[in-house]
């Protein structure tokens, strides 16, 4: 029986082990320096983007000043719904930060090769997302200038915070997370800033880079202690990621409100946070690799591997959604059951179905390898994930408070223009910092990329490569996606 051979492009693509992703289009250390440092030159499009971000931020600041002058009543709170867009957005931004730490810190000890070219971007995203998140509990205060009362310090009133309160745990968790993430980002940047310093011709910029690089010289002594310290920072960040969003979930789970008082919350929140952060990584990295001409660094294989992680976390989140319903049914608690019915088929059906569609149903498309390797679809999906994860927090916060134990308390909630303006301002704040970062510092880690680029050797031909163990091996036949 005759068979017809399928064209090569239609053949199933090999499943690339994520630890063995290579960069065959990057041939030398000098090329890495040349191409990544070239991305630092500002462009007209960058200035336009920065202008839009600053405008959004100014609108947010103006609205906040209005809110301080008029009082929190302008923000759409409707008793007993006294947590609204600010707390939703706080949880949203903390969650965004988590994928950054997952990619930069947790995947580092596991030697996942696909993290190398995307981790700097993800780590910067983490720092700026946590900086944004930290603003929201302050925005949510009636007297925002008193926010420091949550920090334990000796003063004349002899008043101390209540360490049994989840809100105080939050302060410790978020401040630790911000400090450690910023430290991790900066420590990783030091060798790259030294590379910028050595290339810089402008004396003022050279001086600034010299100070920021702390006189780094790439010596064996520096690298030996740097690699060990970096590993320990990654090891500290790994449980920190799990603890921070667990603590954020305690803000809800410690209360007796229906829909909140569940032991499933910490893992549910952590999985959701990582899922939302991967969505934001796609939203940022897919346009960036195109605009910066870095498609041979962040290849289709990198995106494919990250998409598998996205699919996995989506499945965990989906399982958590289903488990919540099962727990409500199995508990026999009428209030809990009534609340979940109201959430999905009653008052808040539209929000719940946006959440379920964006976070549970659409990511199932990532089972298709063709769609995992389609950057247009990944970008569109990432926007849906961002939307869906914001609505997940809306569905957690608002339906519970608006539908508590007593029917006479049941009410509704609608954000006002003040809420939306401050939400927009938060995106402006985040985007402004990120845009400033990508034109001052390398968006791909120069020193770490060099670790997976074959070094120049006397005794090996130029067509050899190194595997993840650092051994020199011949290149396999061209792997699809590596040049894209």
């Amino acid at each position, binding site marked *: 029986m005759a068979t017809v051979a399928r064209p090569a492009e239609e053949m199933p693509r090999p499943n690339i082990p994520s630890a063995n992703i290579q960069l065959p289009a990057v041939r030398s250390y000098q090329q890495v320096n040349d191409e990544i440092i070239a991305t630092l030159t500002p462009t007209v499009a960058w200035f336009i983007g920065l202008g839009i971000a600053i405008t959004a931020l100014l609108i947010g600041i103006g609205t906040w000043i209005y809110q301080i002058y008029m009082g929190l009543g302008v923000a759409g709170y409707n008793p007993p719904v006294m947590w609204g867009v600010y707390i939703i957005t706080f949880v949203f931004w903390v969650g965004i930060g988590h994928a950054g730490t997952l990619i930069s810190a947790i995947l580092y000890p596991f030697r996942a090769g696909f993290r190398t070219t995307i981790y700097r971007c993800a780590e910067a995203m983490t720092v700026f997302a946590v900086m944004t998140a930290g603003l929201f509990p302050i925005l949510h205060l009636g007297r925002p200038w008193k926010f420091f009362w949550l920090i334990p310090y000796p003063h004349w009133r002899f008043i101390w915070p209540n360490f049994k309160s989840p809100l105080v745990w939050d302060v410790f968790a978020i401040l630790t997370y911000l400090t450690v993430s910023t430290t991790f980002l900066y420590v990783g940047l030091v060798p790259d800033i030294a590379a910028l310093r050595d290339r810089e011709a402008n004396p003022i910029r050279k001086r600034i880079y010299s100070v920021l690089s702390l*006189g780094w010289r790439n010596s064996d002594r520096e690298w030996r202690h740097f690699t060990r310290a970096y590993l320990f920072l990654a090891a*500290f960040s790994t449980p920190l990621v799990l603890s921070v969003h667990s603590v954020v979930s305690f803000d809800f789970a410690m209360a007796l409100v229906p829909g909140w008082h569940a032991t499933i919350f910490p893992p549910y929140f952590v999985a959701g946070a990582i899922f939302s952060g991967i969505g934001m990584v796609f939203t940022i990295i897919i346009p960036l690799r195109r605009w910066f001409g870095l498609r041979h660094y962040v290849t289709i294989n990198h995106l494919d591997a990250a998409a598998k992680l996205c699919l996995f976390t989506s499945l965990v989140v989906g399982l958590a959604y289903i488990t919540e319903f099962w727990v409500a049914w199995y508990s026999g608690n009428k209030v809990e059951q009534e609340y979940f019915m109201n959430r999905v088929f009653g008052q808040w059906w539209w929000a719940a179905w946006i959440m379920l569609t964006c976070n549970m149903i659409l990511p199932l498309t990532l089972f298709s390898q063709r769609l995992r390797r389609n950057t247009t679809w990944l970008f569109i999906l990432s926007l849906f994930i961002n939307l869906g994860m914001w609505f997940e927090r809306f569905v957690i916060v608002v339906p519970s408070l608006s539908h508590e134990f007593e029917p006479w308390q049941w009410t509704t909630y609608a954000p006002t223009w003040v809420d939306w303006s401050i939400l927009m301002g938060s995106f402006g704040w985040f985007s402004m910092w990120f845009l400033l970062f990508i034109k001052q510092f390398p968006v791909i880690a120069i020193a770490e990329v060099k670790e997976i680029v074959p*070094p120049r050797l006397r005794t090996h031909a130029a067509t050899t490569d190194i595997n993840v163990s650092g051994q020199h091996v011949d290149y396999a036949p061209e792997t699809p996606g590596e040049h894209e």
Partner: protein
Amino acid sequence: MRGVLGVFRELDSAVDAIAELRRSKAGSITVYSPTPRHELEHALAHGPSVVRRFTLVGGLLGVTFGYWIAIWVSEYWPMVVGGKPIPSWVPYTIIGFEMMVLVGALSTVFGMFAVARVPRLMMTVGYDPRFSDGDYGIWVECPPDREAKVTQVLQANGAVEVRRER
């Protein structure tokens, strides 16, 4: 401080030069590389980094402080919450854990800077901007009478440039 600096294009040339310099006990060797490489680490055969001690001490201090501040404040300002003991170790574990991570991470970075001698205020001698680009460097700190021998070893192993500095 005086010595000889050799610039290498190839990694294996630098590794061979290090091995020969160590055999000949030419002087104190510092190697520069654009990225950390196991081959160089093995050739230099340094012991494990002592940064881990800073991490351990910082982590222990942090967790102790975290528990202490929470327990001390509770005793100072006693308030019964949910019928639980005044110092409740379960919720205070959160504070202890966060402080362990915070102080442990910061002391790790402090330790790295201290033992790696960073920040360095002056670049002094024995460095070339090419070492952050793509080349490898070997700086051998040695007395004047050994400079000729070191220069010969560096050149014989493929150094593209050798210069004396002080």
